[in-house]
């Protein structure tokens, strides 16, 4: 059968090949230009204030008073809040997410999966501001009751109305769930069936097979899930700006706290001059943090995994 096609002769074919290559290169170039320009922009805008205020004063100062007559720009508590808040959220979110993924991929009957899976996907699609609003309306009042019970009659404790590190951490933990669940589940499902069959045939129980065979085999996908989850948690701003209280304090569970992201978001609108530049510096620090965490997390987790092989 004769077919008519634009690829009819070799000249046309090579033109198509070349055009396609150019298109791919241009697309790849767009991404690189974006990453490079963001990096350069962050450094250009972030470094002047960093040295004007002084690295040690910014990084190790504990007083944030950007609009005072003698402004102070210490963000140690803000950095610590981001580190501690994100770690706690990950400590809760990752195990729950991973076990949910195991449930979906291995344990749950098909009919249940058909209900749970769309629910998880819906969770991923909920805009973060909605998490924040629900946090203000439901989580914070509940947290305030706990706070009132714990600090009853305390003279020194500043009551936060439930807007504190614990609330922010819980919201973050829920927010990273869909990322962790979806990616872990796909990687668990991608484990070759013969591994599972071999394990079961050697007499291992289903649960033993899951923890000794399937999860280790799906390791690299699960690591990706954790890294993306951490990234989402540390980069989240909208939801926690509403539930964390946003005052700069030492990150203790019942303190009102401010994260690196919310420090930028909440004051950018009205900041001017050096204050504005310092916010860019915070952006630069956040940027550096995400880079360091992602790189080292990937390295540590991959290395730990290799020893298991």
């Amino acid at each position, binding site marked *: 059968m004769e077919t008519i096609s634009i690829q009819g002769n070799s000249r046309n074919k090579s033109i198509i090949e070349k055009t396609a290559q150019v298109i791919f290169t241009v697309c790849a170039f767009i991404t690189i230009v974006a990453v490079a320009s963001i990096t350069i922009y962050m450094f250009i805008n972030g470094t002047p204030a960093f040295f004007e205020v002084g690295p040690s004063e910014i990084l190790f100062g504990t007083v944030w008073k950007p609009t005072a007559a003698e402004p102070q720009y210490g963000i140690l508590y803000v950095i610590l809040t981001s580190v501690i808040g994100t770690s706690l959220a990950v400590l809760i979110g990752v195990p729950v997410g991973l076990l949910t993924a195991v449930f979906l991929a291995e344990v749950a009957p098909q009919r249940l999966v058909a209900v749970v899976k769309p629910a998880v996907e819906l969770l991923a699609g909920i805009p973060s501001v909605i998490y924040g609003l629900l946090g203000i309306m439901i989580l914070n009042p509940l947290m305030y009751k706990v706070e009132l019970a714990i600090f009853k009659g305390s003279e020194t404790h500043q009551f936060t*109305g439930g807007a504190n590190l614990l609330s922010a951490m819980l919201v973050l933990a829920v927010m990273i769930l869909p990322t962790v669940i979806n990616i872990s589940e796909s990687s668990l499902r991608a484990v070759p069936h013969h591994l599972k069959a071999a394990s079961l045939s050697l007499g291992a129980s289903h649960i033993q097979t899951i923890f000794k065979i399937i999860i280790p085999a799906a390791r690299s996908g699960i690591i990706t899930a954790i890294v993306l989850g951490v990234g989402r948690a540390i980069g989240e701003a909208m939801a926690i700006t509403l539930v964390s209280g946003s005052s700069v304090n030492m990150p203790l569970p019942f303190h*009102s706290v401010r994260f690196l992201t919310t420090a930028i978001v909440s004051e950018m609108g009205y900041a001017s001059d050096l204050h504005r530049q310092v916010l860019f510096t915070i952006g630069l620090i956040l940027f550096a943090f995400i880079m360091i965490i992602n790189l080292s997390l990937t390295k540590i987790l991959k290395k730990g995994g290799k020893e298991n092989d």
Partner: protein
Amino acid sequence: MKKKKIVVLIITMMVILTGLAGCSQVAAEEELVAAEEPQEEATELTGSITMSGSTSMENMANAVAETFMAKYPGVTVNAEFTGSSAGIESVLAGSVDIGNSSRALTDEEKSAGAVENIVAIDGIAVAVDPANAVSDLTKDDLIGLFTGSISNWSELGGADAPVVVVGREAGSGTRGAFEELLEIEDACNYASELDSTGAVVARIASTPGAIGYVSLDAVDDTIKTMALEGVEATVDNIKAGTYFLSRPFVMATVGEVSEQSENVQALFAYLISEEGKEVIRTVGLITVD
């Protein structure tokens, strides 16, 4: 199979391209129509006015822009809400015609060429959650509550509940105005620093014992406003000058209004007309005479 895919791809691209071309044609036609309309209506003003600045002025700026554009269909008013300082920065840089500011201009900004045109006055309401039994505060009470020296409502005759101080972020016009009027700049002991008026209202409404400040026009049924020194936070009281928490809404220009473009002059003329004042009143602000 592969050939077929490429053919499909090319057809898809062609369809998309034709679609795009169609769109731009329609857009071009619309532009033509838009450009011709004002002449038919015999209104001589055409062009656009850009403004940016205070988020507190969003309600007012939008209402004014809408009614002004209805009156002068040839003029488009673009309003952005970036914050008072950012707005004045923009007007000084020449990127917008008007910089909105919900605080008086600083000497620095004035010496850079910005002119302070006060178009309205905003009252700041002190709000608590609806269940709070306290309903009147003195200036000293207010200072004590916000700086942390009064930490329980029972000290003011209310229920035995801790005070939860809610405020705006550093740099906010409302916070600046509030702290300045009470002379407690950077001395407030906030449990929550939120970055929008709506968030403050939501936080106060949902937290027993909370106290905070919001623009008078943002007050709704979910929160309870306090009388200060026995004076209720009402328009009449602010106009009469008996309620001490109020601030100006400024539309800053570079140079006097008379030096501005025809469009901008028309906008300021509209703001002081009866019609414009009515619009300002409908968004809960107080007009200046």
